């Protein structure tokens, strides 16, 4: 699958000797074993399709995913963008990739081309809207959740829908599976929020704390170290000790637990949605979901919650 995706981009890069696209195509050989392309492959298997049937959808989702990141870097003024090009040329490359995301679907069976193209286009449009909401920032806690649901899930719902359709699922079954993409996207975004604040590297989240739910929790919840946390946030970039102390408050205030709690709920909702979809074999998608939820499951097991207790409380 990875090489098919890489070749789909390479073919277009070679046609014009387009170096920037070639850089991204070379990287496609190393696509992560998790992500929208892999999700589409798993959805195709779940519907009873051969892996090859998912390749056009996987290539489309990869192109779309890279395009989204190119734009995301521009919006965030990222210091280390996906490709080293002036901003205008990165926007230009994103435009090419959005078109390629539709074009590669020409390799799908004729009866699937229109529904797959519509799914890819809708995913890009919805993500763009989510990006704009995200750029405006969350005014309150409800606003945070609205942004999360608008920004991250569209690519995941598209991956599940496109993969299932490619594997031969009926439109209704593909739609049912796509519903799992919403909690799945929330799960991924919460994990991303935690990864961005719990790691040693200082991510931009600390400069926009209202847009990271862990930081928002520590700033807003009624806990003994709240004032101290407010004082520490502006200092984390200049003072490693302030960064370490702020991270400890994130845990002791319950912010970390809050994220784990909502990740557990999202994982449970995604699992139930997958199981509700009338498909030949749910296992390929559930395996990926379990892999994604493993840090949460392992943490809760570490503090004594058994698997059946997680299910009962879901």
């Amino acid at each position, binding site marked *: 699958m990875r090489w098919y995706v890489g070749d789909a981009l390479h073919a277009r890069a070679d046609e014009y000797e387009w170096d920037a696209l070639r850089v991204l195509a070379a990287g496609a050989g190393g696509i992560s074993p998790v992500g929208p392309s892999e999700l589409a492959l798993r959805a195709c298997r779940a519907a009873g399709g051969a892996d090859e049937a998912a390749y056009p959808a996987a290539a489309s989702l990869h192109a779309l995913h890279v395009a989204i*990141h190119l734009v995301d870097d521009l919006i965030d003024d990222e210091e280390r963008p996906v490709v080293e090009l002036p901003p205008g040329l990165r926007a230009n490359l994103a435009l090419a990739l959005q078109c390629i995301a539709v074009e590669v679907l020409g390799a799908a069976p004729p009866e699937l081309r229109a529904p797959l193209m519509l799914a890819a286009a809708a995913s890009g449009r919805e993500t763009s809207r989510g990006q704009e909401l995200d750029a405006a920032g969350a005014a309150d806690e409800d606003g945070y959740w609205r942004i999360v649901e608008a920004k991250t899930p569209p690519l995941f719902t598209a991956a599940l829908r496109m993969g299932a359709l490619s594997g031969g699922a009926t439109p209704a079954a593909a739609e049912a599976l796509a519903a799992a993409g919403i909690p799945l996207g929330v799960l991924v975004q919460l994990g991303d929020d935690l990864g961005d604040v719990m*790691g040693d590297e200082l991510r931009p989240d600390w400069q926009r704390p209202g847009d990271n739910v862990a930081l928002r929790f520590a700033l807003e919840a009624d806990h003994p170290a709240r004032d101290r946390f407010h004082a520490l946030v502006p200092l984390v970039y200049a003072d490693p000790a302030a960064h370490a102390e702020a991270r400890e408050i994130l845990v002791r205030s319950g912010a970390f*637990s809050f994220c784990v709690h909502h990740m557990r709920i999202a994982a449970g909702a995604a699992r139930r949605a997958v199981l509700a979809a009338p498909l030949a074999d749910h296992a390929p998608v559930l395996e990926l979901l379990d892999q994604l939820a493993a840090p949460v499951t392992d943490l809760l097991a570490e503090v004594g919650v058994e698997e059946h207790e997680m299910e009962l409380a879901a």
Partner: protein
Amino acid sequence: MRRETIHQFRAALAGRTEPGPLVRAYRELARRPGLAAGAGFAAWGDWAGPPVAGAK
């Protein structure tokens, strides 16, 4: 999806009533920063991060 707010969650975490197994677990997580540090959330970048090798 059912969704507790920040204030509801914090109140449950800090409450004096006998907690269920999950709230007990969340309290325990809040007491052990070492667990959070080792939870492996860096791997989440594979999902939410750039989808090409060598980027960032």
